[in-house]
């Protein structure tokens, strides 16, 4: 059994920094942005104070940060970066690159609203906007999950060679202190072996990686038929489709060693026997549990599906969990403009072809750091219940809980 962990009072940013430190990251390249800056400031203090044997590279932009991380990862280093909002947007091209190059970079995404207009407070638009890039996306509900998810992220990433983004709500988690069990270094070392890269730059055996690749497969000088662009991209999708198994396995192993299991794609709260399900992601999933308590007191059979892994989207698991539901209320701290909240679209996609005939309602909440109260979630569910009576399965556009 692992040496007993100690409980520290940590905010989300410090929990993330501890996670990276315990994972023995070797190269950290980062650029500051509110509300992420303390993550990498803390890591730079660890490096400077000799507590973490790593190279800390202060780059001039987030684009460079991820460029440095991908380059270092290519030569076999375990790398880490953190960012938010505009910084994540600035990295956009390199997010595609890291995934296509199959590099196990881990990124802490501290969720912050994106301008215009300027806003430094929390919503999930930033990471949701990057869901197409090919990264695994995991959302933390509290600071313990932040620390734990970063450690697991390395194990997942390095097993299947897909980069992982651990997302957590800016300010709500990043700057809020909570008790966190910090595992011992020995225990983490037992859980997380050193990184074995699939690419290595070796002068004795020179190679060109991620070269210009044409549309069609080509026969190389050795007569071997090599992938065209589409085949390489297929492999990335295949890796993501198959990653569920590894994510659950790593979550299970983590539970066995540290006493907190993550063998799931989402957190289930009283889903058994519930015919009304609230879906939320990140810290909002905790608020949803409070709302569910209130609704249960009023006699409703409400459960909460706290989405944890957003990419790969757990279609089969969601379909199974919502089988008995007649109302699904999805709260999104983001919106795909012109359509609806991202989680809502994806849940609908998961349910297509199943026998589930639940009413689905989508509410946009909390943008730009707007506080979301459990009472408001309760009111939204009650409002949705009224439309169940009218037999209205789907609305064209989501409703917004705001001052308009």
């Amino acid at each position, binding site marked *: 059994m692992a040496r007993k962990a100690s409980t520290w009072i940590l905010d989300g940013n410090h929990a993330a920094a501890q996670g990276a430190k315990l994972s023995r990251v070797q190269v950290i390249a980062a650029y500051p942005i509110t509300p992420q800056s303390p993550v990498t400031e803390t890591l730079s203090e660890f490096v400077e104070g000799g507590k973490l044997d790593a190279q800390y590279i202060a780059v001039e932009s987030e684009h460079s940060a991820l460029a440095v991380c991908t380059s270092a990862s290519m030569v076999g280093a375990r790398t880490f970066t953190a960012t938010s909002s505009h910084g994540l947007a600035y990295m956009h091209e390199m997010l595609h690159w890291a995934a296509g190059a199959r590099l196990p970079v881990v990124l802490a995404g501290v969720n912050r609203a994106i301008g215009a207009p300027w806003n430094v407070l929390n919503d999930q638009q930033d990471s949701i906007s990057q869901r197409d890039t090919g990264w695994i996306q995991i959302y933390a509900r509290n600071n313990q999950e932040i620390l734990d998810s970063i450690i697991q992220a390395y194990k997942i990433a390095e097993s299947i060679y897909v980069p992982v983004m651990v997302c957590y709500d800016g300010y709500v988690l990043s700057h809020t202190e909570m008790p966190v069990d910090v595992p011992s270094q020995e225990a983490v070392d037992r859980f997380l072996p050193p990184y074995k890269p699939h690419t290595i730059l070796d002068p004795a*055996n020179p190679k060109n990686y991620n*070269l210009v690749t044409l549309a069609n497969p080509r026969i*190389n*000088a*050795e007569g071997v038929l090599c*992938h065209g662009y589409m085949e390489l991209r297929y492999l990335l999708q295949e890796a993501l489709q198959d990653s569920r198994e590894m994510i659950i396995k790593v979550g299970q192993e983590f539970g066995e060693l540290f006493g907190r299991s993550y063998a799931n794609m989402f957190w289930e709260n009283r889903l058994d026997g519930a015919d009304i399900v609230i879906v939320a992601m990140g810290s909002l999933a905790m608020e949803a549990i409070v709302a569910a308590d209130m609704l249960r007191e009023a006699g409703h059979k409400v459960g909460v599906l706290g989405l944890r892994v957003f990419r790969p989207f757990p279609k089969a698991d969601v379909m199974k969990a919502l089988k008995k539901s007649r109302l699904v209320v999805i709260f999104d701290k983001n919106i795909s403009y012109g359509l609806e909240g991202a989680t809502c679209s994806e849940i609908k996609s998961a349910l297509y072809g199943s026998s589930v005939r639940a009413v689905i309602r989508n509410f946009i909440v909390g943008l730009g750091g707007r506080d979301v109260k459990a009472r408001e979630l309760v009111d939204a569910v009650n409002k949705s219940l009224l439309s169940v009576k009218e037999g209205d399965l789907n609305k064209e556009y989501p409703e917004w809980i705001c001052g308009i």
Partner: protein
Amino acid sequence: MGTRDCQHICGESSPAVGEAGKTGEWRDSFPVIDQEKCLPVRQNKPSCFLCWLYCPDAVINKTIPIQINMEYCKGCGICAQVCPAHAITMVNEEGFCPNETD
């Protein structure tokens, strides 16, 4: 037989002649050397060889007479540009008509 046998998970290649295929097929004009003007040929000793030095695809040999590997020459025309004796002319491939209009 698919491409999975190559066992790459990202784009990957090793340096080798012809790794990207017969790139000579890409060209629309090719270099022709006038041996009466070429300096190493006239002097019958190794000299000049600026075409070899500047060729971006390393398809020119420092031989007398100079040989160009037409399997990989892309017809960029740099050799013709740099030749101090103006011994190299770029000739259009058969079927390539740059000024043709309908």
